């Protein structure tokens, strides 16, 4: 797992994806921070963090699109799958590489919290709760993106499909409202990533939501492993 993790981290920076990801992340989060927080003269960050959901949604697929699809396209997966490593090591190595990059992005964005702390009164528990929520949201999204990347050989297809899938997750609440069947509607709401994430921006630290995100991450990583395993039997 370590070897694959290190290679992916290198690849992020060599290919430039890391820089694009970080730059776009900082640009938009900077705009939201400036407009929504500094410009309004408030230390209320919930608006900023709820907007961040959209950025994360569109940027995560850029991180994950290549991870599995390129291996298959260039046949480098033959090197990985015939090496004495398990499928979980391969998948988790890649997963944690993407997650690390996401965490780096978030760590730097933490500077906003320090600025706010300097300028005014901040409720630290809420603020930190928000950062944690974003991290776990990213963890779940990365697993989804990685899974979709394992389904195709085309990285653009992987990126677009991941964005669509994540966007559908985002729309889950509004879709649920129009579903007549109460049970289905309830299931859809309970699967909503956005409403769970919003709880944190409102200052509620919901452990069940953390568990939800972690479970989603595990589920999709498991599915990725199954995809790799099934390909051998094809």
């Amino acid at each position, binding site marked *: 797992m370590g070897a694959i993790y290190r290679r992916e981290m290198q690849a992020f920076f060599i290919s430039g994806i890391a820089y694009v990801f970080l730059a776009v992340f900082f640009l938009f989060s900077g705009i939201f921070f400036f407009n929504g927080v500094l410009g309004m003269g408030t230390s209320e960050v919930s608006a900023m963090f709820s907007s961040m959901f959209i950025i994360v949604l569109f940027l995560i697929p850029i991180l994950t699109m290549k991870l599995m699809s390129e291996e298959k396209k*260039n046949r480098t997966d033959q090197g990985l799958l015939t090496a*004495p490593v398990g499928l979980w090591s391969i998948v988790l190595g890649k997963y944690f590489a993407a997650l690390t990059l996401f965490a780096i992005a978030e760590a730097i964005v933490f500077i906003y919290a320090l600025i706010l702390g300097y300028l005014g009164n901040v409720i630290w528990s809420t603020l930190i709760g928000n950062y944690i929520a974003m991290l776990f949201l990213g963890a779940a999204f990365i697993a989804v993106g990685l899974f979709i990347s394992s389904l195709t050989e085309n990285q653009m297809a992987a990126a677009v499909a991941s964005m669509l899938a994540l966007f559908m997750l985002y729309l889950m609440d509004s879709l649920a409202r129009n579903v007549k069947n109460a049970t289905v509607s309830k299931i859809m709401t309970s699967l909503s990533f956005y409403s769970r994430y919003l709880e944190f921006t409102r200052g509620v630290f919901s452990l069940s939501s953390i568990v939800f995100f972690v479970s989603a991450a595990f589920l999709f990583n498991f599915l990725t492993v199954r995809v790799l395993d099934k390909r051998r039997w094809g």
Partner: protein
Amino acid sequence: MIEVKNLTKRYGDKQAVNDISFKVEKGEILGFLGPNGAGKSTTMNMLTGYISSTSGQILINGVDILEDPKKAKSFIGYLPEIPPLYMDMTVDAYLSFMFDLKKCKLPRKAHLKDVCDLCKITAVRGRLIRNLSKGYKQRVGLAQALINNPPVLILDEPTVGLDPNQIIEIRTLIKKLGKTHTVILSSHILPEIQAVCDKIIIINKGVVAANGTAEEIAKNITNEHKMTLRIEGSTGTAADKQQVADAIRALPGVKYVRADMEREKGIYDYDVEAEENVDIRRSLNDLCREKGWNILMLQLSDLTLEDIFLKITMGETLSDSQKNSKPAPKIDISVKDGELVASTAKADEAPAAEDESADAEEKENGGDQ
């Protein structure tokens, strides 16, 4: 070292590999020969655990590849048809990655240096793989397979796409590696397999068409005593032709003589066929000495592996056209107790095949100037 029992792979209705069994002992080089699409790569991918077999068993060093894949894979160095190279890495970074991936416990610096020296890629270690020539990429692929000194090397068409010099280099390297490793090598190029391998398996349409050592296979097909002679007669004119042909025909055991073209000025070639199990070369020599003629060339046109191979491939094109009718007709080759037996070829078909192979040979040697 490697034991394969009744290996079968089915893709839907298509039988890619059908009931293949073989054994490779330690220190042997086994050649897998077959036309494109014969099932060579599929077999190799199963051997290395990249894909699973539909049925059958593969034991690497006694370990079942499906039961304990990690352990079995740790015995294998694999160079797939397309080397698994990351184009945006340097050779050094890539080999270092493979070193970690294979959980190699050898001293990193020294081992990587050894591998690079062996594959002659030391000069390009700092370069991006993307910028390397095809030959170097292939060698990096080979280097990758050698990391961690696996006892088994599986090389899928290691010389494909290389220029003649590089081919010779890689072949020499494989031969050298064969002394310390068990090697399985695939190719659709016959001379390559002949040059490198101790044992040969000819595979066609997913089934083993022939199996044995290179000599065994050749020996079993040398019962057609045909040869081409170039004899310089006494007059150096066309009059020799008849005279020489008649004299040879008069030798005991000669079945058939035909004077051929004038290949050199005033000198003719003769196609001679003797009865089976009769060696006429000595009496032929005596005859020429007696008459004062010179033998300028004597070439036995026994079936070479090339001919077998041509037959197999011809069998394939034949069955392609009748795809909808049942499995491939069993070519004119059958296997008996691991020995290859060529059924006497149809008289009208065999010479054509020989001509073709002679042409191919000529081309390969760059003509005979």
